[in-house]
């Protein structure tokens, strides 16, 4: 049984890693995923001006490059399309800033491989011990906004660690291009009536990963874009 699980990870799970100027962490992230037996990694270099692309290529990732920076949502959309094109059965999204623990990935895959869920969100808020309180508050606000706009409650609407069955990924329509994509994905699970589960994950907070997250200013921009995304959804 364990062997079958290992085979499944090798051949069918594709990890999508959106990366923008992540030369400090990308090598470690890819190596960590390799250690988990995850070898099909797609790195979307989102118009980086540093050596992210070269390093990802050296580590054996499938490297796709955006000629212009399109933001997290744009990069995720490209990665998910590429993964589907390559015949992935399960697609995992994984941040490139080193905040996720690759050891959490198997736990994310389990509900999908068992057929219990279509989408699994790695929630940092189910066990928030060690999370900076500013992050806790910011995440909670984002959860409330997501609930008010899209009518569904999650404990971590901004988590970048997620897994989708290929059927679920194919049905989701990602329109936003920035960090608001995280809430949009949650909205899409509701719209497409996908079975969603959350599993606890531990984020690795470093000064670097904290600097890469949403600042107050970016948070406000994200809120504005989310409201526009909601209006577009209503008008389309």
């Amino acid at each position, binding site marked *: 049984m364990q062997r079958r699980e290992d085979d499944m990870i090798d051949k069918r799970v594709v990890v999508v890693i959106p990366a923008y100027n992540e030369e400090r962490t990308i090598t470690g992230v890819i190596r960590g995923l390799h250690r988990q037996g995850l070898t099909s990694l797609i790195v979307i270099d989102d118009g980086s001006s540093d050596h992210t692309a070269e390093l990802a290529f050296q580590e054996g*990732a499938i490297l796709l490059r955006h000629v212009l920076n399109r933001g997290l949502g744009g990069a995720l959309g490209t990665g998910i399309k590429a993964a589907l094109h390559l015949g992935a059965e399960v697609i995992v999204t994984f941040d490139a800033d080193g905040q996720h623990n690759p050891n959490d990935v198997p736990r994310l895959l389990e509900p999908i491989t068992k057929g219990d869920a279509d989408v699994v969100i790695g929630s940092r808020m189910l066990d928030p011990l060690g999370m900076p309180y500013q992050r806790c508050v910011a995440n909670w606000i984002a959860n409330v906004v997501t609930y008010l706009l899209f009518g569904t409650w999650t404990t971590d609407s901004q988590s970048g660690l997620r897994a989708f069955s290929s059927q679920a990924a194919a049905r989701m329509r990602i329109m936003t291009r920035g960090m608001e994509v995280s809430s949009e994905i949650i909205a899409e699970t509701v719209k497409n009536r996908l079975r969603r589960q959350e599993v606890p994950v531990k984020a690795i907070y470093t000064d670097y990963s904290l600097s890469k997250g949403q600042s107050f200013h970016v948070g406000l921009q994200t809120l504005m874009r989310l409201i526009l995304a909601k209006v577009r959804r209503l008008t389309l």
Partner: protein
Amino acid sequence: MKPIQFILLACVLAALTKVIHSYQQRRMRTLNFLFWTLLWIGTASIIMFPDATSFVAHLLGIGRGADLIIYASLLMSFCLIFRIHLMLARLEQEITEIVRAIALGRLTEAVDSRGGDDK
């Protein structure tokens, strides 16, 4: 008519000419053409008959005609800004689609030329 009315009317006429020209050149859709034509004709009417705004303002419970114009202008500006926001969002989406198509066009090449040891 006062000199200011002539100046303003000339501006409106210039704008209206531009609208008609754009429509003739097929750079404007019919709905947009009708909207802008009506807007500029309405503006010209207000310039020529300013007292008419006072009449409408009284009907709506607003003190002065000038206030009505300010309120209406503000409302229209907000609507326009919102439209421009939506238009920009659509443009951004289209740029993303192009960038994505370029990236995905090289997918096969990216898979074949994968670096590292575990190709």
